[in-house]
């Protein structure tokens, strides 16, 4: 009986799911590079929220980690202090989405959650930035406010307008796999 159960048990990660996750990680990296000419305006938080809500904590954490390593290597910012700070900042998203906002599906509430995550990420990054770039705390805190607002507002807007259609699309894509 137990052998039969083991045989039918769904694996943690199927090959197709792994391919989809890889493509979505590339999408996460690609959109950020494409929107690099705009300061802090991107869909990074929207996609991270979407991935965390769709794939759960473990899988979305894997995607975020791969994205971060790819981004840091490509941008030349791979640094133990800086990259660790970024990882902690980005990991706030799957942590919050899979705990506090686990049952939340309303795009407006998730948009506020995205804005909160944007501020948390920026605040987490204060310490590594001060450490690596020797930036004075007060000056950095003041100068960073418009950048924080841009990241929070663009994430808010992205989630508000695109979360529902993207969630439906992703669910359909994953349902196709189940069939």
């Amino acid at each position: 009986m137990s052998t039969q159960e083991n045989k039918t048990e769904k694996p943690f990660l199927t090959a197709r799911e792994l391919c989809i996750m890889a493509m979505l990680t590339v999408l996460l990296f690609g959109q950020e590079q494409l929107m690099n000419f705009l300061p802090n305006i991107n869909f990074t938080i929207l996609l991270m929220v979407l991935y965390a809500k769709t794939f759960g904590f473990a899988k979305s954490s894997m995607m975020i980690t791969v994205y971060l390593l790819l981004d840091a290597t490509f941008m030349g910012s791979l640094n133990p202090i800086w990259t660790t700070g970024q990882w902690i900042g980005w990991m706030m998203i799957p942590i919050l989405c899979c705990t506090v906002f686990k049952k939340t599906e309303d795009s407006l509430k998730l948009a506020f959650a995205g804005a909160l995550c944007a501020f948390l990420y920026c605040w987490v990054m204060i310490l590594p930035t001060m450490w690596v770039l020797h930036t004075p705390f007060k000056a950095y805190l003041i100068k960073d406010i418009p950048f924080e607002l841009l990241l929070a507002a663009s994430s808010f807007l992205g989630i508000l307008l695109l979360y529902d259609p993207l969630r439906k699309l992703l669910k359909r894509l994953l349902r196709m796999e189940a069939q």
Partner: protein
Amino acid sequence: MKNKKVLWAILAIIVIAVAYIVIAKPFIPKGDGSITVKVTDLDQKLIKEKKIVFNTGDKLTDLVSKNFDNVLIKDGMLMNIESLVTPADWAQYIAIWTNGKLAEVGIETLPYGDGDVLEFRMTVNEYAGK
């Protein structure tokens, strides 16, 4: 609910626009171009250096007069600027250099463009007293 979302979306767009303007403002050029003007003494020691923003049609003499002290332009020639003073016997004079080359015309007719480096250099007049 939909109206609420539209209102929040409009508010987010306003926040993005305001924050973007605040960030981009220092990078927006105020004029049509800028020139760097240096004033150097006989030993080519820098007395003052200034980046001056100009609009098309601005006269160089006006730009220099507005941005430097003790400017005296007489008969189309720059006589004094900052601590440089042309002596009465013309033993020294203020030469104008444009992008490292000695200018062939005076300050009133000297052409200039964006990114140019002008230098007002105190120079010994080799022909004085001859």
